[in-house]
């Protein structure tokens, strides 16, 4: 699995792709953690533009990223969230913990 990421002025953007379920969640968690550890950004943006499906495993991915960022006193942002992942994030209440930018439709 490979995700494109870029660092600009202390802001690390990681472009996630595909369907986030239990089958692949562990790999997503590890990749995000290693990128945050490598770049130590002030802000990390998880870009969900190309994510087509999220279940509760996606919540675990966000919670782990949130933990990684709070350890280095940084901020986490979610962007490009389409309606299906948004409903899962709302049902779990994670939209109250992280700043979320929905996809422009």
């Amino acid at each position: 699995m490979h995700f494109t990421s870029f660092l600009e002025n202390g802001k690390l953007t990681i472009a996630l792709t595909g369907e986030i379920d239990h089958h692949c969640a562990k790999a997503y968690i590890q990749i995000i953690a290693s990128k945050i550890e490598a770049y130590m950004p002030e802000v990390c943006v998880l870009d969900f533009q190309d994510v087509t499906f999220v279940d509760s495993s996606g919540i675990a991915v966000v919670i782990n990223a949130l933990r990684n960022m709070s350890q280095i006193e940084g901020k986490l942002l979610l962007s490009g969230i389409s309606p299906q992942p948004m409903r899962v994030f709302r049902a779990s209440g994670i939209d109250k913990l992280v700043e979320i930018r929905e996809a422009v439709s």
Partner: protein
Amino acid sequence: MKFDNYMILEFPSRSTNEAFARSAVACFAAQMDPTLEELGDIRTAVSEAVTNCIVHAYPNEIGNITLRCRILKDNVLDIVIKDKGVGITDVEQARRPSFTTGGAERSGMGFTIMESFMTNFEVSSASGKGTTVHMRRKLQRRK
């Protein structure tokens, strides 16, 4: 006839089958002309139920999962997901948000999501015998 159409699937508790199961149910439900939101909710609930079988019902072995879908009258999709795994000792506790016996890649939100995305949701379980999740979703008839 009590129902219009049905399908039954049986597959081993391998995590690759999470995507297969939710896609299969979505394909079956397509004949009911669901909205994108309804289809998304159904896929998510099925994904949660099947993941629970894989993670919790059969923690150290590969076992069988049976999935049955029926279309009932008034445009209701009826889904039963059954395993013969370890069972849940305390169903009430398992249904509580953020309670999980899974690892860091789990969130404890599975039951909460199934409950909020489906019209009806029931779990029955016997320790050592298995768990059955029964859920229904009424789909809006589009004008």
